[in-house]
């Protein structure tokens, strides 16, 4: 299956690039290990939750920094703390680092510095979101393509459309038979 290897490599490359660029780190890998039949979309779910959370916190900080009367640095600090915790749990390294940098400015009650950091943070967050969404799209599509290749090679055993759970099981079978699924381990 030369072609299959080709696909696999393409996927791995994309995942690796994410790691290489520091967008995600080992923690993300850990999360992927938590996916199984019972929670086949765990990473996507956690990521969605994180996106919501992150956007909310960034908004709150933006509003806080715009207060004419006086910036509530304590609130900003809390937001950063939360965001740092979440991003570190999910493995979003660059976002986490941006938070750490942000913190020093908020500690120093430096409004200008904070604004700059917030911008940086937003940028990192958008980047992360884009990349992750692409990764998910690619992973779903490739999983299914992968599966249909297996079907062709096996010879018409499964004619019905595949729900995700079956995809998952099939992947297990592939692994058991000595093949491997495009994933970063």
């Amino acid at each position, binding site marked *: 299956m030369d072609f299959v290897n080709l696909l696999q490599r393409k996927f791995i490359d994309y995942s690796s690039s994410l790691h290489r660029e520091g967008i995600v780190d080992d923690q993300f890998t850990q*999360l992927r290990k938590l996916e199984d039949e019972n929670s086949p979309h765990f990473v996507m779910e956690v990521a969605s939750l994180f996106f919501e959370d992150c956007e909310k916190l960034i908004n709150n900080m933006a509003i806080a920094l715009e207060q004419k009367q006086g910036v509530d640095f304590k609130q900003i600090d809390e937001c950063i*703390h939360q965001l740092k915790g979440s991003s570190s749990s999910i493995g979003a390294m660059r976002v986490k680092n941006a938070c750490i940098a942000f913190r020093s400015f908020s500690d120093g009650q430096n409004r200008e510095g904070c604004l700059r950091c917030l911008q940086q943070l937003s940028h990192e967050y958008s980047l992360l979101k884009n990349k992750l969404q692409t990764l998910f799209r690619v992973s779903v599509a490739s999983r299914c393509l992968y599966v249909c290749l297996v079907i062709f090679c096996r010879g018409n055993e499964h004619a019905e459309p595949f729900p995700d759970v079956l995809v998952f099981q099939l992947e297990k079978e592939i692994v058991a038979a000595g093949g491997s699924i495009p994933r970063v381990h």
Partner: protein
Amino acid sequence: MDKGLPAKREITFETELFGSKTFLIYVEPVFSKAGETIGINYMGMDITDQVRKRERMIKIREEIAVQKAKETELNRTIHITEETMRAKQMLATMSHEIRSPLSGVVSMAEILATTKLDREQRQLLDVMISSGDLVLQLINDILDLSKVESGVMKLEATKFRPREVVKHVLQTAAASLRKILTLEGNVADDVPIEVIGDVLRIRQILTNLISNAIKFTHEGKVGVKLYVVPEPPFAKEGSQNGSAGSTANQSTTNVPKEETCTSTSQTSSDQRGFHGKKHEGSCQDRSQNERGTPVTNGTIDVTEEQAELPETTVWIRCDVYDTGIGIPENALPTLFKKYMQVSADHARKYGGTGLGLAICKQLVELMGGRLTVSSQVHCGSTFTFILPYKVSLSCDHSDDVDDDLSDMDDHGATDDDATAGFFQFQPRTLGSLFSSNGSSRTQNLLAHNIGYVNSHKINGFSENCYSFPTSNGQTKEMDLFEDACSVAEALEISPEPESSFSHSPDHDNESAICRDEHHHNVVNAENKVSTRDVSSCSETSREVDVKEKITEPQLPAERQGRSDSGFQSTLNSSREASNSISKPKILLVEDNKINVMVTRSMMKQLGHTIDVVSNGVEAVRAIQYHSYDLVLMDVCMPVMDGLQTTRLIRSFEETGNWDEAAKAGIEKPSPSSDSLQPDCTPPKRIPIIAMTANALSESADECSANGMDSFISKPVTFQKLKECLEQYFP
């Protein structure tokens, strides 16, 4: 690839981002000039819409097939019905012939029972008699039914006293009651003392419904409620079709019509709405003192033997309710059909012929009324029939009837709140079934009730103290109970001493946990309370409940008395398999939802379920009511941080009390749960693991200074959790 042939498939993806889509995928290999496969052409076409249309077509075709099948069924049914009619006639004739000799057999058996027999003989005879009775009953039922159906049945019109009838029926049922149930009867004030109707049939109906109720209720109560209602709407249409009365000929035309009427509205929801109009929506509650609306003075043109006396017609509604297994909604339409039981399992388990309800329904409708049912599975059922009765206005004086009823007429017009005509039959075997603890409590209960009653309603009850001779000589107890009847509902019993529960302190801790409304978070999370504890606790409570006739107070999560109802409802969502008792109880104290999600998922992979709270205050509360084997404590949290929380927990462990926590503003747990902590042994030290984000304020030293056992640095990884668990649960 192997075959070198193109192929196409339809594949459906569920995508988080785009929804469910179906693609037609066409793949063909690409060959180089030399004939090697160098790649594939992959084409995907979105055929989601076509697929949907296709499915719809399939559905339509299915529906057509179903319709055709229905038609054939109907045709078949018509043939069967014709056959059935013929068979029924024959059955009725035969039954009559069978009955006479069978009665003979049973009578002889009963006489034999009075002679001297040894034990084995008596046992055999008992079986004979009960079997014979059953068969006789069956035959009578069949005959009744065919009589009613064929229109041969004549209805009587005699004067009788409803309260007496209810009382007697309940008395009979109570005498042969083999289960621990409470029987009660409630006749509203405005039900006349005497009415005219077919007392035999009415008694039959009541007996049947009550015995059904008893049969299908294993705990709780069965009761009868009788009250006056205004003329129901169906009566008008009934009277237009011809009098709904006692003459045979008219009844034949009426019965089928009414049957079709009711058969379309058999579902409980319809009936509820139907009756709701008449009763201001108060159909299904068990309030004891419900009253009907005043008697209407409508007359129906029925010829009666006593036509010369001025008469009014009163519609009386009777509810027979129980707290039994209930009837599933899908079984309701067929309930009144002959030979139908709720399911084959029911028939096997509970016996019976399936005729009773059909007969009742026929009889009720023959008399111009309606029989309906509403039910909820596992909660109970209520069978309701409404019948018209004539009331002869001239017979309002005391007759030469039972002495103990002569007082009633004087109080007939009483307008105080107590219901005249309330009976309650407590389970007879109260005294014998309990341990000494139980019966002493029962005695206390009685004394308590009596005192209450005597101080309030001594007048209202004198006329209702019927003394019923019971076979086991516990007459006195029965009397006392009857005195206490209408007060029992409102009465609250003081909290039982906890020693009465034969449980370990742990269990009581768990029962206490539910009373605290703040435990919503803890309990809603995957709670590791084992079902065994829960169910044994609640089962015992339930039994004791019934035995002592302590009503479940509707507590709004307050900490008083018995917390059965609260206990059950809060733990409903979190029952787990009983084998969870061996797993360690782990509490996670973390405010960040994403961290919670990740940690929980990792713990799940390690095979543990965890409870989650989101700040220190909740953590303290959780530990107050529950014993945990491990606590994972986030350091930085709102409301109360991890360090302070740990300090409070350690102070409790050292001093045995929650004073420090109280100072910090956390209420102490209620006295009853406190007393459960055995004073002799100090509370066990719970391992508390800090989850630090490596900030300056969260150094290892600081953590251990505040009482933490060790720490995990965030982000939480699988490996870290695994090591931690191995350390504390080797």
